[in-house]
């Protein structure tokens, strides 16, 4: 109550300031007069009396000031004064203002940009209800080394067991992704769309209700009703966002599905996580009941493919934890369940474990480390910028020392001077924050454009309120960081001393401090430059790798026959055959082939051949990654993989002839070291053992890095598509010279043979490789950019300090030259100064960089974390920068005319 009244009366007094001031004046004046009257009664002259009263009671003006300064109004007023004064001060030295704002804006802009990315990818909660309690569960095979975190699939039977036994989770839901070709009733060209089959409890578990319509029920799922829930994107693009979409039919792989619901735009699941085959356009757009996959044979029991065979394990499991259960507890319980299952079903589950991970961590996946690294880098950059600004402010503060001394002399308290200086730096920082935001916009776009395609949620990066708040806070923090040093320094000056001696004495005192700050900038810049050097060198090393084939002049296409599950094997083989024949007739086409998979970029499980003639079974400990690929046409010639021995497949290798295979060098070395592999016989690994025929090796080809450029080639066996009958959807076409085959030509050719074929990923091989190196390119670019900025800032810092030093020492230099110092002596004097500043910083920086490089170890390729070139390069860049930054002021110093210089004294 009294507080309210208090505020009210203060506000009133603020409004009625004038009137109140008038009354107060009268009252005070009366007070002093009465006191003076008393004195005259005691016999003083009126003049003496007035003087006595002033001495005893304070003057009218001082009293008014005291009373005035107790109010809030006063605080606001002085802040405003400081603000105006700060603005004027900045306007008076526009060079400093512009430079300061730019330097800080660089730092703030870079931080804002990186923060908005980190915010979108790592920090923002997932668009589900209570996302902290969602987790992914998947099977891990204890045999394999480094089995992929992101894509361990689970068999349906295991899911059912988990769901029956587990107590840590409220519920578990199951889903799997699948590419579909989709047409609407209006009969558009089929388009490949990623869909997911999900269990009926999936949507309730995620806790997101459909925007329109509904999800499907358990009952409908059991009845295998072809119902579908659309993503917001498909609803917009295929149905124009009309509510009439509900109840309409969508043709998927030739069969009608009824639309029952539309999800809100922010709902995306599953997010893409580190899968190279699926690009962003392949995000899941449709959700259908788990039981409606047409390729699943409806069995009598109505349940799904319940085989335990790992080959058929294609399900992914998402769970919602009970409110009080931690992820660790859940993991422990799942471990117990896994052990129990291993005991019950030793055939299938003996080596299987279960991994549980928070959904957000699962989605962010491997992007965590690079993004955190990036955040650290920009933070360092900001630190450098702040240090730089502190040096500048110090230099400028020396020039202003006299002004501050005058202020102190006429009664400004130390607090008041500090506040004034801090207000100025805050003003600068806010200006810089604004400019930084302007810089951040393009930087974010650049980061998104440069980024590898597989960063989940990166496309959702926005400059939203959180980002704005972040950069504003950052600006204020910076203003404290760079403003406090000079403010403390100068407010502590003794005004008497300063006014007596002028600037010189204090000026020299700030040099050690400036030197320290410059040293710090060099140390931090060295850390950044070395890290950037290491990452750039790794990137270059990756680019230098021989991929094992010739990526020039190759166009790749993925062609999916519209209904792969329904089409008979022979028809697909026939289609490939006709495609290849037609392509060969196109002028300029040198070779064309098909393959099941060109690259196997995910971690591959360790395997062994089931049997190799004349060899004992391979112990599990010796297993390494091994893949089978099916090829058709002139695949090797199209890719430019040289045949080392034996022969290619030819038209006689058909379903009726004895099975043959071509192996690569790694495989040959693994099983027949030092022997000729041609004519050797082998049998496939487990899931492929449907027929027990011996496969004869007829050819040996060179290794290619199908496992990713950065991994050593793995053992590979190639089969003829005609013999294995499996789909080889990847088409590889090599043209003789000139540009690669136009995408349009290939599209038209393939369509003319099958209207319903779905084409995707029409890319040159060079682009494919480019994408594979995208994460490294991303890191190298950004680190390069940020560290060059750091270099620039460090150079500016040295320049500022030496320039300032020269300006201060002109009389001294004049005297030295008058006494016979040569120009070289002067330059050496200055260089020695610069080296002392930068050198100490570089020494400290070297130790820091050595340590930070060891943190980067895991991200390096082809070099060690003590790579001499990176260290020496970074060091010499900085030394050069220091020398260049000293050169210009030094040149100015040597032009000093002793006579002119001495006149200053």
């Amino acid at each position: 109550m009294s507080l309210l009244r208090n505020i009210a009366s203060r506000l009133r007094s603020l409004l009625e300031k004038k009137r109140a001031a008038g009354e107060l004046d009268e009252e005070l004046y009366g007070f002093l007069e009465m006191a003076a009257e008393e004195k005259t009664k005691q016999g003083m002259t009126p003049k003496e009396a007035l003087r006595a009263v002033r001495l005893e009671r304070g003057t009218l003006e001082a009293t008014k000031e005291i009373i005035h300064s107790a109010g809030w109004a006063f605080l606001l007023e002085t802040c405003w004064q400081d603000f105006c004064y700060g603005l004027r001060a900045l306007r008076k030295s526009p060079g400093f203002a512009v430079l300061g704002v730019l330097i800080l804006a660089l730092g703030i802009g870079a931080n804002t940009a990186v923060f908005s990315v980190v915010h979108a990818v790592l920090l923002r909660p997932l668009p589900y209800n209570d996302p902290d309690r969602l987790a992914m569960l998947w099977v891990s095979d204890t045999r394999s080394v480094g089995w992929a975190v992101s894509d361990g699939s689970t068999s349906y039977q295991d899911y059912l067991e988990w769901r029956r036994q587990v107590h840590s989770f409220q519920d578990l839901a199951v889903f799997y992704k699948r590419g579909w070709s989709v047409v609407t009733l209006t009969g558009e060209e089929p388009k490949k769309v990623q869909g997911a089959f999900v269990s009926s409890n999936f949507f309730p578990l995620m806790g997101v209700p459909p925007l329109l319509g509904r999800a499907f029920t358990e009952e409908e799922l059991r009845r295998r009703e072809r119902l579908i829930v659309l993503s917001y994107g498909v609803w917009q693009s295929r149905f124009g966002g009309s509510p009439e979409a509900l109840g309409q039919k969508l043709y998927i792989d030739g069969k009608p599905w009824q639309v029952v619901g539309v999800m809100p735009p922010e709902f995306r699941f599953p997010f893409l996580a580190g899968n190279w085959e699926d690009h962003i356009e392949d995000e899941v757009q449709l959700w259908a009941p788990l039981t409606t996959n047409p390729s699943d044979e409806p069995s009598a029991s109505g349940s799904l493919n319940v085989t335990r065979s790992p080959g058929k394990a294609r399900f992914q499991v998402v769970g919602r934890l009970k409110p009080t259960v931690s992820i660790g507890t859940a993991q422990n319980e799942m471990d117990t369940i896994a052990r129990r299952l291993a005991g019950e079903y030793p055939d299938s589950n003996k080596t299987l474990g279960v991994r549980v991970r928070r959904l957000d961590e699962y989605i962010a996946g491997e992007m965590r480390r690079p993004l955190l690294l990036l955040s650290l880098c920009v933070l360092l950059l900001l630190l450098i910028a702040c240090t730089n600004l502190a040096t500048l402010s110090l230099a400028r503060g020396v020039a202003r020392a006299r002004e501050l001394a005058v202020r102190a002399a006429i009664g400004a308290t130390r607090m008041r001077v500090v506040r004034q200086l801090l207000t100025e730096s805050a003003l600068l920082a806010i200006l810089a924050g604004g400019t930084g935001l302007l810089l951040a916009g393009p930087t974010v776009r650049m980061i998104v454009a440069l980024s590898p395609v597989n960063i989940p949620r990166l496309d959702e990066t926005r400059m939203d309120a959180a980002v704005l708040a972040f950069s504003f806070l950052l600006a204020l923090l910076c203003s404290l960081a760079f403003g406090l040093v000079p403010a403390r320094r100068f407010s502590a000056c003794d005004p008497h001393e300063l006014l007596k001696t002028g600037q010189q004495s204090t000026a020299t005192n700030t040099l050690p401090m400036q030197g320290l700050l410059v040293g710090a900038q060099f140390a931090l810049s060295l850390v950044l430059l070395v890290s950037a050097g290491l990452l750039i060198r790794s990137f270059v090393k990756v680019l230098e790798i021989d991929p094992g084939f010739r990526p020039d002049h190759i166009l790749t296409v993925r062609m999916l026959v519209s209904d792969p599950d329904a089409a008979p094997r022979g028809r697909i083989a026939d289609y490939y055959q006709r495609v290849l024949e037609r392509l060969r007739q196109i002028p300029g086409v040198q070779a064309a082939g098909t393959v099941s998979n060109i690259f196997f970029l995910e971690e591959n499980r360790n395997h062994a051949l089931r049997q190799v003639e004349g060899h004992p079974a391979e112990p599990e400990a010796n297993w390494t990654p091994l893949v089978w690929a099916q090829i058709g046409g002139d695949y090797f010639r199209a890719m430019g993989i040289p045949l080392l021995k034996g022969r290619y497949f030819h038209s006689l290798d058909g379903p009726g002839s004895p099975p043959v295979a071509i192996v690569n060098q790694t495989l040959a070395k693994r099983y027949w070291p030092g022997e000729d592999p041609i004519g050797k016989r082998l049998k496939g690994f487990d899931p492929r053992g449907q027929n027990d025929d011996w496969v004869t090796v007829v050819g040996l080809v060179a290794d290619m890095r199908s496992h990713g450029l950065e991994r050593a080639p793995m053992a590979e066996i190639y089969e003829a598509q005609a013999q294995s009958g499996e789909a080889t959807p990847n088409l590889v076409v090599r043209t003789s010279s000139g540009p690669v085959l136009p995408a349009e030509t290939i599209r038209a050719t393939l369509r003319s043979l099958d209207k319903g074929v779905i084409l995707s990923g029409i890319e040159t091989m060079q682009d494919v490789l480019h994408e594979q190196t995208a994460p490294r390119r991303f890191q190298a670019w950004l680190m390069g950019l940020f560290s060059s900025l750091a270099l620039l800032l460090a150079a500016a810092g040295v320049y500022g300090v030496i320039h300032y030093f020269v300006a201060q020492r002109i009389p001294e230099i004049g005297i030295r030259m008058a006494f016979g110092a040569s120009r070289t002596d002067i330059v050496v004097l200055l260089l020695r100064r610069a080296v002392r500043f930068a050198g100490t910083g570089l020494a400290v920086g070297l130790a820091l960089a050595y340590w930070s490089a060891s943190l980067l170890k895991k991200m390096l390729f082809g070099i060690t974390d003590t790579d001499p070139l990176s260290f020496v390069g970074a060091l010499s860049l900085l030394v050069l920068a220091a020398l260049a930054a000293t050169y210009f002021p030094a040149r100015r110093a040597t032009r000093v005319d002793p006579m002119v210089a001495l006149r200053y004294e």
Partner: protein
Amino acid sequence: MPNKPSDLVQGTLDMLLLKTLALEPMHGYGISVRIEQMSRGVFRLNAGSLFLAIQRLERAGLIKGEWKETENSRRAKYYALTEQGQKRLSSETREWGKQVAAIARILEAS
């Protein structure tokens, strides 16, 4: 009269002002003279702190000002205790007594 008047114990000025005004309504100068007299010159108020205290008390509604003629036919603002001020004075006096006694006990303890 001592040359250097003592500083008031922190926070006691308000209480002294209330006490002074409890006797009779008075203007600013009157208050300062009265406090000086009553303290036998130990406390001397400068105009700044006096008027700050007056404003503070008036805002809190403990005293009320009114412009009047003085005996020397000069206009001055006279301050009087409000009912609330009366209550505050008696409660503060009680509290002060307690504190002084307590402090004295502490200081005398050996």
